[in-house]
């Protein structure tokens, strides 16, 4: 078994892992960037549409172009060693790192062993101080949403179909129905149209689209593709290959079966959400937030396992890659701080953040009064002119408003971010209190 020693192991070479590696290497630490595919860039390689980079690079790029900007900066850096076609199978942490499980090896406190499998390197054991989890997400599939009917060929998750079309150059079908109006589904509606297929309908269970507005316009309206809001696919037909689907309107949460109509099609694409891919994290005791499916992270993006950080879609699902890069840079910087100040880190006590009215979750799950905190949160409602309210709540349930802000438009598909300066937080902080930061939208 080969052994190697690095300061950091970054798991995953997509948008998150690339940004994190770049920052850690720039700060002078040696990074092992482990990627299971045969090249860096992750899902960006198949996202050939544009719309990436408006925030981060202030220009509009396609997915491969966005990836290439980071790949170029990482490839030439001597501090980064890239392991392609290599899968992280297992992580062993010392007991001192992990409050959640007794599992772990007897190596010295703070040291982690990362076991990687690949054809090229065999089993590679990397000994490291820190780990950045950047494994991204997987798509929810037909089984997860339990559509009744048969199980023929021709049912694809939208991302898999995108891979077939954009990389492999094969068409998944000719007459297509798309379930779910997530961004990948919308992008694929246009993409399928542009390769000569007919997209017959997009079916969305919610009364509002779950993808970005610009994708509704550019991908559906431009090609007159019908979007059926508050509808479900209630049955799949076909023995060998998909032959048709039943579509049923939903009112007050109940399917109106008598209003069901049938659409003949040979292909079904599913764009019904992404799930953070945390199977590896769970294996070594990283605590998971049930609201996000990602790790619980503190104000420094560190998980419940000491020295293990998380960022990008493996932490929570982002709608813009720009935010993934930004978040990963933050997580990577904290990882470097951690290595610099080991033993006396973190300096300040942290307090919890709480998602309250109309908010699904807030990331990170705690804040550090000594730093300027940046929060990401996801609204649960669609509203114009919404009011964001952040309050400090103590044990006596007394609340003090720390920040109020008008938000022109909120919707579940668009994540919101907000910065709060250290000084502002300190004004409200009380000794010996819980000091919970409560987020709500009205």
């Amino acid at each position, binding site marked *: 078994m080969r052994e190697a020693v690095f300061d950091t192991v970054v798991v995953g070479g997509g948008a998150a892992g690339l940004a994190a590696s770049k920052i850690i290497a720039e700060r002078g630490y040696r990074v092992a960037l482990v990627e299971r595919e045969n090249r860096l860039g992750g899902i960006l390689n198949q996202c050939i549409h544009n719309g990436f980079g408006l925030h981060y690079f202030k220009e509009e790029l396609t997915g491969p172009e966005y990836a290439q900007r980071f790949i170029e900066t990482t490839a030439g850096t001597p501090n980064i060693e890239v392991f392609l076609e290599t899968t992280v199978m297992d992580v062993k942490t010392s007991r001192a790192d992990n409050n959640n499980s007794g599992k772990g090896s007897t190596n010295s406190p703070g040291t982690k062993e990362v076991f990687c499998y690949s054809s090229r390197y*065999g089993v590679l054991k990397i000994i490291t101080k820190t780990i950045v989890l950047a494994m991204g997400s997987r*798509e929810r599939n037909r*089984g997860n949403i*339990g559509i009744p009917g048969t199980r*023929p*060929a021709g049912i694809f998750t939208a991302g*898999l179909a995108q891979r077939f*079309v954009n990389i*492999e150059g094969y068409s998944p079908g000719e007459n297509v129905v798309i379930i779910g109006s997530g961004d990948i589904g919308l992008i694929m509606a246009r993409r399928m149209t542009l*390769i000569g297929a007919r997209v017959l309908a997009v079916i969305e269970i919610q009364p509002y689209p779950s993808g970005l507005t610009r994708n509704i316009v550019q991908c559906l309206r431009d090609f007159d593709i019908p979007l059926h809001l508050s509808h479900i696919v209630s049955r799949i037909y076909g023995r060998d290959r998909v032959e048709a689907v039943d579509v049923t309107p939903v009112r007050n949460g109940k399917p109106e079966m008598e209003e069901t109509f049938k659409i003949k099609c040979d292909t079904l694409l599913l764009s019904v959400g992404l799930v953070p891919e945390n199977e590896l994290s769970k294996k070594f005791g990283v605590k998971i937030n049930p609201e996000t499916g990602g790790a619980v992270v503190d104000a420094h993006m560190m998980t419940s396992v000491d020295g293990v950080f998380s960022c990008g879609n493996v932490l929570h699902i982002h709608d813009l890659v720009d935010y993934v890069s930004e978040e990963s840079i933050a997580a990577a910087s904290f990882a470097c701080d951690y290595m610099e100040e080991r033993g006396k880190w973190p300096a300040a006590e942290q307090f919890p953040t709480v998602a309250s009215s109309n908010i699904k979750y807030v990331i990170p799950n705690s804040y550090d009064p000594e730093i300027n905190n940046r929060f990401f949160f996801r609204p649960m409602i669609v509203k114009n002119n919404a009011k964001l309210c952040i309050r400090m709540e103590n044990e006596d349930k007394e609340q003090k408003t720390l920040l109020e802000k008008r938000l022109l438009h909120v919707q579940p598909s668009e994540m919101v971010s907000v910065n709060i300066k250290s000084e502002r937080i300190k004004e409200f902080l009380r000794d010996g209190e819980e000091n919970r930061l409560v987020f709500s939208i009205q």
Partner: protein
Amino acid sequence: MKNKVLDVAIIGAGVTGASIARKLSAYKLDIALIEKETDVAFGVSKANSGIIHAGFHHPPVTLKSKLEIMGNSMFDQLNRELHFPFKRCGIIVAAMSVEEMKTIQELYQRGVNNGVIGIELCNRSRMLELEPNLNSDVTGGLYAPTGGIIEPYRFVFSLVESARKNGVNIITNFEVVDKRETNNTYTLISSTGESIKARYVINASGLYADKISELFGAKKFKITPRKGEYYLLDKSSSYRPSRVIFPVPTKISKGILVVPTVEGTTLIGPTAENINDREDFSTSIENFEKIFYATRRLVPAISERDIITSFAGVRPAAEGGDFIIESYPDVPKFINAAGIQSPGLTASPAIAEYVKDLLKKQGCRLVEKPDYDPYLDETVKLREMDHSSADQLFQKDPRYGNIICRCENVSEAEIVHAIHQGHTTLDGIKFYTRAQMGRCQGGFCSYKIIKIIHRETGLPFEKITKRGRESYILKGSIEDDWKGVVEVTNTSLQGGTTRDMQTGSPDNNAQSAGGNEGNT
């Protein structure tokens, strides 16, 4: 094959046909195992509960019961020889009322009469001790430690591999639609006009056994397709039991069960619904609700959030309810092995013995082969290895280091092995290796598997299927699909181009795909 007259042709490569084929492969016989689907175990055997029954459900007068008990006892030896996923985890039957406990008493007595080893009656606390996640309202129940679980399709694959190793011809995509009879020889004719000649024919054709029996002019009976729907729950579910949990059975069915599969998932189901269409594998909302309602009564923590997938299987229920394994004086050299539904999987090794004896009675000479080898090498499963053994394995074959299915940790080498064993569809590879069977259901790995199938078999991408027949995955390459292709040369482009280009042709594309493969 065409002109040669074989000794035995077995119609149907499910667990019954495969068990018979393997049993007969110990003798000096030319045998063909014939399957209408693209792969073996693609019928009844691929979608059932995967239970090795203990033998307390059926009265001892039935053939079912006799073969069930005998079959159960044969699995340890079979597993030593063939290494399929199998575990004697035990079976419990949970009574939820004093009324149901009366049936439990009957089952217990039946079990004792049938000779079920170790069967015990349990009070409430014994039940909760055996299965802590059981509904705490449980009144009591039955425990049969010899019951177990198995992966039915992998069991069939092992039987078929063993049969093939000992000389049996495996013929897939051969649907028997007609027969001829000359000079003591049967000629089986397929839907595509191919033929196979054999002196003896064994009908193990599952859902179609009534039709084959009729074709040979043997006993008339009716197979009623009985559909069972199932849901498969993620490995990470906290309530996973360690034993198979049955409800108290009713007259028509053994009920809806909670099964801890050998590979760590939890299976719930089946429903039992008589249908007309032998190929209706659809699932419904009504049965979804029924299954969750019924199994939550046993294990209240069962959650629909853990669903990985759903499926339906169809059992071949014969009139009278018992197995039909017999020969007929007026139809020489023909044997029916029909109506093999639950506990058919458990009984299958005993069915093979029984059919062998019938064959002998029909005059077939059974001479033992001196070189018969009942043992198979154990298939390598990367997911069950520790890091240092994995490392040694990678030295021998680096393709084991290339993880293709990240959910179930299946390597490239394992997929290549499956293909070389004849499993060239996505479902065949799934059942053989578990790749695509985990939580992403092939979202990440199916394109990689398609590429490997293409590389290993030469099948073009668009000819690769999910499970044979017309179940094509892809509709052709983009260039072919695009109806508006205009042949352009550099000069016809407005303003010209700035680099060397050529017009596309499908041939070049095929080459570039090949080049890609050579590089991996």
